[in-house]
């Protein structure tokens, strides 16, 4: 059976930007259905679907919703939708927001009903002005149509939704950094526990979910958990998935595939290698994911298979590199990113990301020393597992994979005292 695009069905359908247009595609039927269900039954359906978080960690969404305490009906609760999308290589959530804002609003609204959250904040990275404007317009239309507001869809449920803009800090994508930032503070991650489900935004129980995670929810209610489970590799890896593919491919972009499609198939769907180059390496899940080699081309791109290969599916942002790419230069660039974005709270992360950038930079410029590979390994060992949030581990991933999978490239830089790879010059005569 041919795979039917569900999440991206409205991409290119400009009509779907309007409330009427969205409704024509079956929009807000799932929310209407949800309001007729017990909130607990909504959570059960999402649990049954096997939907795992699409933001990076792959945590089961239904289980997360189930953690929200419901004893005190008067206690405020929040949903914060993570639209920070700052993981290098990732651009899938932007597609959702720019092309189908109501799908996200509907997903958020269903989640709010399921956990009794009367307020939803969509925390969007500051650079996404266009997405923010489109979302705000769509939210206003939903208020005007009384889908949101004091008596959402006549259900008696009060539901407010606001867009909150970040201001340029990758760490605010980490869920507790995001909560700090939402509260008007520096976006420095919190010590866990307590987890956000217990003490989240403004001290209240809070669900945090990624944009794509929430966009799946209306379809699960409309078509049922069994339909969702019928897509994917196995029970633990279910549903449609967006893959953002970039770098040296002929047609970079966001593609919807069943989760667990192989990297080879995904590459073919994107038109193959750019200018018929040869594949050297690829990053399967954003800058935080350890780099895989060309020989792993047949890997199934689902959470568990990629983890088993020593990397992670992360945000499913796939960066493709051909044979002209210098792995030392690539990892040095990522190390610069992590050093810049470390919030500086934990000494191992602050100092370690600085060190890794320094050593990689000198290697890149032919000033590396014998033993730098070992040094990188030992610095990485000190950062990994010794930090408050997952940024520390993320920073280590690419560096470790360089040392373990591409040691010959480090050696060549040290031996030749220069980078053996060409500069990236693609535009002839400055054109």
């Amino acid at each position, binding site marked *: 059976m041919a795979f039917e695009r569900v999440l991206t069905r409205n991409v290119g359908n400009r009509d779907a930007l309007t409330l009427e247009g969205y409704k024509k595609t079956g929009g807000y039927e799932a929310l209407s259905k949800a309001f007729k269900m017990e909130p607990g039954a909504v959570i059960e359906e999402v649990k049954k679907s096997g939907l795992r978080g699409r933001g990076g960690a792959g945590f089961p969404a239904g289980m997360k919703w189930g953690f929200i305490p419901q004893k005190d009906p008067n206690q405020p609760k929040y949903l914060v939708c993570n639209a920070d*999308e700052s993981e*290098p290589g*990732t651009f899938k959530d932007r597609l959702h927001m720019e092309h189908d804002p109501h799908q996200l609003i509907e997903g958020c609204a269903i989640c709010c009903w399921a956990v009794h959250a009367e307020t939803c904040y969509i925390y969007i990275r500051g650079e996404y002005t*266009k997405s923010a404007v489109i979302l705000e317009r769509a939210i206003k239309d939903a208020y005007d149509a009384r889908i949101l507001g004091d008596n959402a869809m006549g259900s008696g449920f009060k539901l407010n939704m606001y867009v909150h803009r*970040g201001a340029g800090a990758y760490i605010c994508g980490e869920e507790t950094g995001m909560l700090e930032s939402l509260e008007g503070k520096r976006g420095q991650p919190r010590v866990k526990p307590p987890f956000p489900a217990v003490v989240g935004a403004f001290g209240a129980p809070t669900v945090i979910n990624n944009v794509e995670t929430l966009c799946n929810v209306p379809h699960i209610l409309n078509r049922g958990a069994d339909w969702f489970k019928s897509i994917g590799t196995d029970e633990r890896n279910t549903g449609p998935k967006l893959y*953002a593919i970039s770098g040296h491919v002929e047609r970079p972009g966001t593609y919807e595939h069943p989760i667990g499609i192989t990297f080879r198939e995904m590459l073919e769907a994107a038109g193959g290698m750019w200018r018929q180059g040869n594949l050297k390496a690829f990053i399967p899940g954003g800058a935080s994911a350890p780099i895989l080699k060309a020989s792993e081309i047949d890997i199934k791109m689902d959470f568990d298979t990629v983890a088993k290969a020593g990397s992670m599916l992360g945000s499913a942002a796939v*960066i493709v590199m051909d044979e002209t790419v210098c792995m030392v230069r690539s990892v040095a660039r990522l190390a610069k990113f992590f050093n810049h974005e470390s919030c500086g709270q934990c000494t191992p992360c602050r100092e370690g990301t600085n060190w890794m950038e320094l050593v990689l930079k000198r290697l890149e410029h032919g000033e590396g020393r014998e033993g730098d590979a070992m040094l990188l390994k030992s610095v990485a060992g000190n950062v990994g597992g010794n930090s408050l949030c997952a940024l520390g581990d993320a920073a280590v991933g690419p560096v470790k994979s360089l040392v373990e999978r591409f040691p010959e490239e480090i050696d060549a830089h040290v031996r030749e005292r220069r980078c053996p790879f060409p500069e990236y010059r693609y535009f002839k005569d*400055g054109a």
Partner: protein
Amino acid sequence: MTEAPAPQTRFPGFTPEARAQIDMLRTRYPTAEAVLLPALYIAQRLSGGWLPDEAIQAVAAELDLPESKVYGVVTFYDLFHQKPVGRHRIRVCTNLSCQIRGSAEIMDTLRQELGVGEEEVTPDGRCSYVHFECLGSCDTAPMMMVDDDYRENLTPNKVRDILRGLK
């Protein structure tokens, strides 16, 4: 150019519209502190794209927050600026997907055409540029942001055209 140019604008004070917007924002959050980021955006817009000290102080007073706290927040985020910027602010993504599709040549073109270094303002106050982390548009690499707009699939010639269009 040896010196940063004189600031193009100062903070003119909150306009009645800005105050009304801040008051509307207060209704969205259970604390006044949560209005801080949006209020800083408003103050920055009123000041011509950066936050002079008096803008930061005015935001602190408006929300009844200690100035030290507001400074702490301003310095944390890359989109708040404590130095004057050009009338047009350019951010070039140089992260991995853009790097391997030619972002260095985009940076070179800006340096040549504008005749100033990163984070400096052209003598006529028109432009400033910086390299930036991934802007979430890797499928259109190399790319840059000009003010709020994404300019995509760049080539050096395209960059020159875009610069000519900036007043």
